[in-house]
């Protein structure tokens, strides 16, 4: 860890500790993890920008159906390329310490594929398609499914889920916090 320490100043670490749900040690550990994705690049410049394909080598992101989407949401350039700060931010949101509301906010962005701040029919369809992977639902079943989701959760009946409605679902779920979590 000696090497990691030399790459960050005390103030930076303090900043990271204040702004994330991590302790200083965890921040350093996260940096190790980040470094292991591309040792030669990050070794030179601790804040190097890694391309999407490199970030997806992180095992949890690699197998996640929303992996590429997660990177895009957290990347500061919105193109999926992540600096260490983006990566740290991501891990902090996925950590145990992050409150449900913060997790819900980011989950909403991840699921909002078209970025219109609403989970519309097309977003829901894409979420379902990614979740079931190589399996397939018939068109009819898919429509039925989406209709059921909207029936349950779309309180104001506008055909899409707003953030408030989404947060309401998450609030009532005991499993969300334990599912929406990646350990460092």
């Amino acid at each position: 860890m000696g090497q990691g320490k030399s790459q960050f100043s005390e103030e930076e670490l303090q900043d990271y500790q204040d702004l994330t749900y991590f302790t200083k040690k965890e921040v350093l550990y996260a940096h190790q993890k980040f470094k292991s994705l591309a040792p030669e690049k990050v070794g030179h410049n601790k804040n190097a920008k890694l391309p999407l394909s490199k970030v997806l080598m992180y095992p949890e992101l690699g197998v996640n159906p929303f992996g590429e989407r997660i990177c895009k949401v957290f990347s500061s350039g919105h193109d999926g390329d992540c600096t260490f700060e983006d990566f740290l931010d991501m891990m902090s949101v996925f950590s145990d310490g992050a409150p449900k509301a913060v997790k819900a906010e980011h989950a909403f962005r991840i699921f909002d594929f078209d970025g219109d701040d609403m989970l519309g029919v097309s977003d829901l369809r894409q979420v379902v398609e990614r979740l079931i992977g190589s399996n397939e639902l018939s068109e009819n079943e898919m429509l039925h499914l989406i209709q059921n989701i909207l029936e349950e959760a779309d309180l104001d009946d506008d055909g899409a889920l707003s953030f408030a409605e989404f947060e309401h679902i998450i609030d009532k779920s005991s499993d969300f916090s334990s599912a929406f979590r990646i350990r460092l």
Partner: protein
Amino acid sequence: MQAAMDDIHLELNHVDTENSDMSIGGDSRFSSYRHRTVSLQRNSLANEMIGLRTMGRYKYHTNTLRSIRSPEDADTIVNQIQENVAKADDEQQADQLRREALRDMPQSLTIKRQVKQTLMLNEKSRGDNHSTIGCYKWAVYSIIILYSKLKASIYNFLYTFELWYLILKTLEGQFGSAVATFFRFFRSLFFLNLFTLVPTFFFIVLPQILQSNFGDEVVVDQESFSPADIFTGEGSLTNSVLFYGHYTNETIKLAKYEYDMPYAYLFTMFVSYVIGFIVLSYSTAKSFRKNFIETKGGSKNVFAHKIFCSWDFGIATEDAATLKSSVIYHELRELLDQWNSPRTKASCASRFFTVCTNFAVNLLILFVLMGIAFGMWILLDKNRLNDDNEHIGMITAVVINVTILVFPLFFTIVGFCEDYKSPRNSFFVNLTRTILLEIVVIGILVAYWITSASKVECWETCLGQEIYRLVIFEFIFSIVFLPMTEIVRFLLNKNFPSTFDPPEFNINRYTLQILYNQTLFWIGLYFSPLLSAIVVLKLFVSWYLTTFTVLHCCKPSSKTWRAAQTETLFLIMAFLNLIMVMTCLGYVVASVETSGCGPFRSFEYVYNLVKEGILGLEQGQTILKTIIYVTKPGVVALIILMMCMGVYYLDAKSRAQDAMVKLLRNMLINEAKDKEFLLTRISLATQGRYNLQENPLEGSPMRQRRMREDLGDSGTEVLLPSHRVNI
């Protein structure tokens, strides 16, 4: 009609005023929920609510800051935060606020750092403009700041020593969070026992060892040690630090130091149990609150939960991910099928049949449990009388352990005959029965030795030995048989992949195993202080064995485990077990006569030690009189009655709040539909096709529906005008 509408509006106003009251201190959960629901309708209200939201904690309403995503907007955030922080009383609070607000903000870290720097600069430029605060407040805030710093450094420190972190992560990656939850439960029990080991070893066992070896009177009557003693706990081990009977009732004198054994023994035991109790009750309550209370009520979002909460983000291997996908797929299919096929009501005869089988099965299990209890009693009685056979004690231990292993299987098989609607129900029923079996077995064991207290020389040691043997044999069983079955199944699958499935990790069985072990430990600790060391060692070994077999032989379960709720259930069971054990030990301390051995032999009841020795109470003192008065049955009954009333009151309150949730939800739906209705009217009117004879308010379908619901369903048809729009 108008009256009914006015009522609703009053109701709404009432809700609003209540909201503003509650947001400051009261019931934060509910008020925040209501905030959100109402804010959907009223944006103006949402704006007012920025700032105070939950109990004493400041939070920024997400809606205001959500849309900001680019670094150029950092200034907006700075302004927003400063505006909100200005409401704070003083500097320290403001500082705290800023930090929390920044951390919880949904912006990227780069923006956050920018904002932080700007804020710091602004702070500096404001300079000495601070209002001075009082001494008291200053002290309070310094303590708070010190505390949060201390907490951060403790976490920093603990993080270095997090035990088994990598194994847990690998397990989570391969098997999902449910299995990881089990192993985390396992680990916390290990730590709990480790914390019990430290005081019991240093304050009870160590002084006794010192006394036996260096004390004034060195004990000489050592029997020769034979290896079989390790399994029976008898022979040379009977009179050793392992068991209660060996401990002295005197003050230990070493050089010039004195150590009063009876007090030390009682006090250490008391502290050990109370620590366990506090830790467990705290975590059980927390988990229960999080997983059952906070998520209860309101709507049932079956489909939405499946979609948004079912992917386990901790999964890290390709296999596990593929499996998860197909599990989700099948569950969705199942849900859709259920939805499509209307539920057929069970016929009278079949329902009668189900009730009959349930009754018969329960009766059968009751008889089986009674039979087990009776058989155990006879076995124990025979063993006590038949002292010449040395290894007879082992037979009881083996029989009991086999019972514990075999009968749950029997219960599962019997459970198949019963036709439970959901697998969840059958799981709960099965679990209850297994726990009952364990309680019966341990209960009989304890009851037997308490009742035959007068017939043996030292019943505490006998009970200690009995439990010691159970723990040892359970150890052997759990390190030999459980991994063996998994390994054999794994090998079978490897050689004949077509006929045998690879073993799945059965969380249920493993949890019951460690719960049983834990209960044995709790009941045995008082009678055998060194048991804590044995149990810690056992958990340590079995951790490595279990993780090894799981990682190398098992495949992820194809069932979905609701990890969070199951964890709560296990915690509750562990907690109940501990309460039962403590009640039982309380009884032993208060009203079972001590035998002629152990640290308390000079007192008739252990309780006397507390009464006379520690509290220094004598007959006739007011404190004693008060204690006796308070423990009278009448007073106890009164206290219990008052507690029941309290529970009833809280329950009624929560039901009322549930009803309010429903009402607000309906209002929300109605409001939305009203909007839609009016929009269509507007478009009609703009196109010049609006029927001017119609009263716009009266025609609103939602208002009609609302009134209909308000008046109750009966008789509403009469009130409704004929032109109903299809909703």
